[in-house]
């Protein structure tokens, strides 16, 4: 129990530390990868709390997602290298206020909600995976299927809106720059 709390604290602080680094640095790629490692620390927290599947999944997904976010940040932000020393913060007072309120709400939910009894022994990882599978395809199937299809539709629609209108003659033509 002591070891678990210690590692939880370590990874939690790492997550917060990397999260702070996201906004302290001016370099876009450093910012994106700092967020990546912050999420990895959260994934490690899951592992420490013995929810193996969630932890591994978090670590895996965040690597790919944050890297893609990195390239988008390089594409759309004006100073990707960060050598210009741009100030990354905007609307300081509003965001501080929003941050305090959000932190208060999160702490309130954590302390006041009824989480149920604490299990004495967390089930084995294989068992957890099995039960997670039953849950996903049983009670929560409608939620996840709808979410999945909605995200896919949004991706396709966004891509279709973003690409310029192609003339029919250009189909399959290697002359057009990618």
């Amino acid at each position, binding site marked *: 129990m002591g070891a678990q709390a210690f590692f939880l604290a370590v990874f939690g602080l790492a997550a917060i530390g990397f999260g702070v680094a996201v906004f302290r640095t001016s*370099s876009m*790629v*450093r910012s994106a*990868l700092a967020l*990546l490692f912050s999420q990895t620390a959260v994934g490690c927290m899951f592992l420490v709390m013995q929810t*193996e*599947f969630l932890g*591994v*999944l978090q*670590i*895996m997904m965040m*690597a*790919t997602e944050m*890297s*893609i976010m*990195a*390239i988008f940040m390089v594409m759309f932000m004006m100073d990707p290298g960060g*050598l210009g020393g741009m100030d990354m913060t905007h609307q300081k007072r509003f965001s501080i206020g929003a941050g305090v309120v959000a932190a208060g709400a999160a702490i309130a939910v954590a302390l006041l909600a009824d989480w149920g009894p604490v299990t004495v022994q967390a089930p*084995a*990882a*294989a068992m*957890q*995976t099995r039960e997670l599978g039953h849950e996903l395809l049983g009670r929560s199937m409608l939620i996840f299927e709808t979410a999945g299809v909605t995200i896919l539709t949004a991706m396709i629609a966004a891509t279709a809106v973003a690409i310029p209108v192609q003339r029919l003659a250009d189909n399959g033509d*290697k002359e057009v720059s*990618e």
Partner: protein
Amino acid sequence: MTVAIVLLTLFGSAWLLAVIEGWTVTGRLQPAAPLLSGLAHLGRESIVPRSPDRVFFEAAPVLLLVVAVLGAAVLPLAPDLVIADLGTGALFINAALAYVLVALIMAGWGPNGAYAMIGGWRFLGQLIAYSMLIVMPITAVAMRAESLVNTAIVGSQADLWNIVYQPLGFVLFYIAAMALAFRSPFDLPTAEGELAGGVDAEYTGVRLAVLRLARLTLVVTLAAATTVFYLGGWHGPLLPPWAWSLIKTLAVAVSMLLAGGYLPRIREADLMRWCWTLGIPLALLNIVIVGLLILVVP
């Protein structure tokens, strides 16, 4: 003890792979060559490019090596010879290997050079192509084993190897594994003829030695994953289990190494197009077929 044996096997295989690679390039079998060239790298000047992103520049080779070792940590050599037989072993390999992308982005962005940068971001495009192709066959494999535990996956192949049961999955996984390890013909990030070495270009001395070791170890890890998922792991007559694992892993690794010499590099546009229009439907088909086989065949 187990940790020592597995790590020794991992780096020993990497060394053997380096010897074989040297053999195909120079025509001479020189067992001492990788060690000597590694030592030579340590002795050479470590040049740091002008105004690099120092954190990324230093971290990238190390991260690549760590990823390869972590991936190998969950792969069993024998039923009792695995560093960490995680409950989600098959998924963990994928999680670890996802950081190859992070390492290459760091290696691309860090040196502040055009060749490296293009190589690094090209690998991101390559990931878009291969990432589905590496996860979906693993899904089909886990379906047959009804577990994500690697030893259980090998156990499920006791009477019939997955390469026979799901050959389509094997082909897709093999191709995706070569793309992940950026071996020729998928060596877009380190293209010698297009980018003069790409992400490898700005590394010298110690860092280059670590990077080269990491690349070889990555190939060994992926070969071991192919063995565990598709070639029945340690199953085989006469020889002890660890010997079979080793033989199969080395065979797959050598084949990945050699296949590239006989093919030209693929165009990035073609890679993405074929993986998405051909590869993913085939991977889904593979899952459907395996599902039907599991339900129908007793």
